[in-house]
C-alpha cells in the first residue's frame, strides 16, 4: 500500500517560485541560497585548520 502523503515535501512547493531580480539577472531564492552556501564552504575550506595535520617540515 502506497501512502504518498508520507513522502510529501517538507515545504509547500505548490506555489510560483520566488525570484531575486537585478537588471537582466534573475535567480531563484533556492539557487541564491545554494550559491551563498558554496561561497561560505569555499572560504571555510581555506581558513579552517585541517585536523590531525602536523607540519613535519616536508613531504
Amino acid at each position, binding site marked *: 500500500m*502506497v*501512502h504518498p502523503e*508520507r*513522502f510529501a515535501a517538507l515545504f509547500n512547493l505548490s506555489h510560483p517560485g520566488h525570484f531575486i531580480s537585478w537588471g537582466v539577472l534573475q535567480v531563484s531564492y533556492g539557487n541564491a541560497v*545554494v550559491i551563498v*552556501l*558554496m561561497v561560505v*564552504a*569555499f572560504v*571555510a*575550506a*581555506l581558513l*579552517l585548520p*585541517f585536523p590531525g*595535520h602536523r*607540519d*613535519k*617540515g*616536508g*613531504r
Partner: protein
Amino acid sequence: MTDPRIERQWTTRLRKRVEGTFPPEKVLPDTQPSYVASWIYVFGVLTLAALVMVIATGCALAIMGPTWWHVSGLGHYINSTHLWSVEVFFFAMVIHLWGKYFMAAWRGGRSMTWMTGAVTFLTSIGAAFTGYLSQTNFDSQWIATQAKDGINATGAGSVFNVLNLGQMLMWHIVLLPLVALGLTAVHVILVRKRGVVPPFADVPEGVVA
C-alpha cells in the same frame, strides 16, 4: 636476452609504457605533500564520492524504470537520493573548480588535467539537464518545452530532440555517463601522474610553472 619480436609486440610496449608512467607508488601513494593537508583538497574526492552515489542510485532506478518513483515509496526514496547526490556532486565540484582556478592548477604540465576536468563539468551539466527531462512529470514537460526553442535555435534540434523522452533518457543513462565516467577516470589518472599542483610559493624562482 629478450626476443626482439616480443619487444616489438604492442602488448609489451604498452605494458612498459604504463609501468614507466604509472609506477605503483605513484598510483597508490603512501604520503602526500604537506600542503595537501587543507580542506580545499577535500572537495575533489567529495565530488568523486558523490559521483559514486549518483551512479549507484541511478543503476537502482534503472532496474525498475523511470516512472517507478511515482508509485513506490522505495522508488521515491532512491529517486530523492539520486537527486541529492547530484546536488552534492555539483556543490563539491564547483568549490573544487574555484580552488583549482585560484591555484592556477594547470601549471607544471597539468593543462590536460585542467581541461579534462572542465569538459567533465560541461558533460555533467548535460547529464543533469537530460536528468531533469527524464523525470516523467509536469516539471520535465515544462523544461522540455522551454528548452526546445533554444536547442532548435542552435541547429542541434534535428539530432537532439528534448521533447523525445526516449532519446533524452538514453542520453542521460548511457551516453553522457559514459563520457563523464571516462573523462573522470582520465582526470584522476592525470592527477596521479602529475601529482597535486604545489602552491605558488613552492615553485622555485626562475622555474616556468
